[in-house]
């Protein structure tokens, strides 16, 4: 898809990030993510994988190097980017419907268009029945669905996810993984996904980037050529298990570096 002349969705050129205390989180990272990719970032803690997301979203600025998102600076590209945080970050005083509509509301979309869009999204993520419930009445998995629906409401071209399913039990996590792929097949966004789970990364991604810590650098890359659509049956396929083993091995090496 990303032939010559096509602008990459995300481009890191020699990007470094130091914190105020002199600690280097990322050191001269080069990384290009093409449109339509689903890239998972995985690595031991301290490898700066969450920092990569912060930099792409413009919530943090690099200490050195250059970042382009769809050919623009991260802040200018925000209109087409959505962020799903580790916690659902719902507003407890708003109903599910009002939470899903929040991103559109902030961008000044009219009420009528908002209602239409949120209605469609609630159907898409299977939350129609709890549209008027408040977040505290929902389970962790449902809250995360609301958070994802809110992120998708603005029809982003790039979706950044920072360990969105880390707090869920394995059943809900697997289920939401399948849901996420279904949504992606319908909406065609590019994804950058931070996770601690190798099996999750293999299941979801078209490419896995393994990072190493102290300072954060790209250690290895694994293209994932498993066919789509991916269903739960994939989790027992031999090629899936081989890839999980390879990535786990690389992850162990990255940690001991």
């Amino acid at each position, binding site marked *: 898809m990303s032939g010559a002349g096509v602008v990459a969705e995300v481009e890191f050129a020699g990007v470094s990030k130091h914190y105020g205390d002199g600690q280097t989180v990322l050191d001269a990272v080069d990384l290009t993510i093409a449109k339509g990719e689903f890239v998972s970032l995985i690595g031991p803690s301290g490898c700066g994988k969450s920092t990569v997301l912060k930099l792409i979203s413009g*919530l943090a600025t690099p200490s050195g190097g250059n970042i382009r998102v769809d050919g623009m600076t991260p802040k200018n590209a925000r209109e087409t980017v959505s*962020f799903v*945080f580790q916690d659902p970050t719902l*507003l*407890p005083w708003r109903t599910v419907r009002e939470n899903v509509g929040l991103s559109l509301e*902030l961008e000044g979309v009219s009420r009528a268009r908002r209602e239409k869009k949120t209605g469609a999204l609630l159907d898409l993520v299977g939350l129609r029945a709890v549209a008027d419930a*408040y977040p*505290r009445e929902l389970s962790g998995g449902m809250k995360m669905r609301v958070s994802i629906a809110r992120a998708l409401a*603005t029809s982003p071209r790039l979706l950044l996810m920072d360990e969105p399913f880390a707090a869920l039990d394995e059943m809900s996590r697997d289920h939401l993984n399948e849901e996420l792929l279904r949504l992606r097949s319908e909406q065609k966004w590019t994804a950058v996904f931070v996770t601690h789970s190798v099996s999750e990364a293999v299941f979801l991604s078209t490419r896995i980037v393994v990072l190493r810590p102290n300072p954060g650098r790209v250690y290895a890359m694994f293209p994932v050529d498993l066919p789509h659509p991916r269903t739960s049956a994939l989790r027992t396929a031999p090629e899936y298990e081989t890839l999980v083993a390879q990535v786990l091995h690389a992850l162990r090496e990255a940690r001991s570096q």
Partner: protein
Amino acid sequence: MKPKLMTLANALAVFAALVALWQIVLWICRVPPYMLPSPWAVARAVAARLPSLATSFAITAEEALGGLLSSLAVGVGVALVFAQSRWVRRMLYPYTLLLQTVPIVAIAPLILMWVGAGTASVALIAFIISLAPIIANTTQGLVSVEENLVHLFLMHNATPRQLLFKLRLPHAVPSLFVGIRIASGISVIGAITGELYAGSSRVGEGGLGYSILYASSQLQTDYLFALVFAATVLGFSFFFLVMFLEWYFLHRWHESARTPEVE
């Protein structure tokens, strides 16, 4: 519903026991009525002087409510300024502590000297004493918003106005109510204290504080007890009003307000 009825029944039973104990003490110790009147005498005093008791109650209620509402308006305003920057908070926050620690009985005479005796100066005293908890709690609510929520708003290019009205202010409402709950109780205390110094603005009648002074000087101990009782009822009414409002505004989404319960 049933546990609430039980709570009410228990509270009434304790009240009845206390009244009975009071009467028994009188019988055993033979206390003269001007020292400790019987419950029956107090009840008679309430019935006989109900109109003037109601007037005093209304005057004090008005002053306390005036003080509370103005401290709410000013306190939220100050908190909004405090929420703007850490520097402003560092510079000005110590003065709100001053507001909280200065003994109201010490500044009440000053305020009366400056503003003049009357309901306005009493309301001003109630205002001063209830301001600090409103400022402190509202500021806390405004600045304690989770970082990722702010990031979420920034990701969708939220304006400072949207950040304030759609995130910080609604987030501060539960803590604001904590402030109002504290302030409501002390606004009544402030008003009664103020009245002890201010006396009556209207000839012949004044708020509960003034009437308490007057009744004690006249050794009308039964009426004094009735006034103390009225002051308690006033404090309770404020407390329950705030509890109800808190429940009304928060019960749908906030954990603390799911069931109104007396602490």
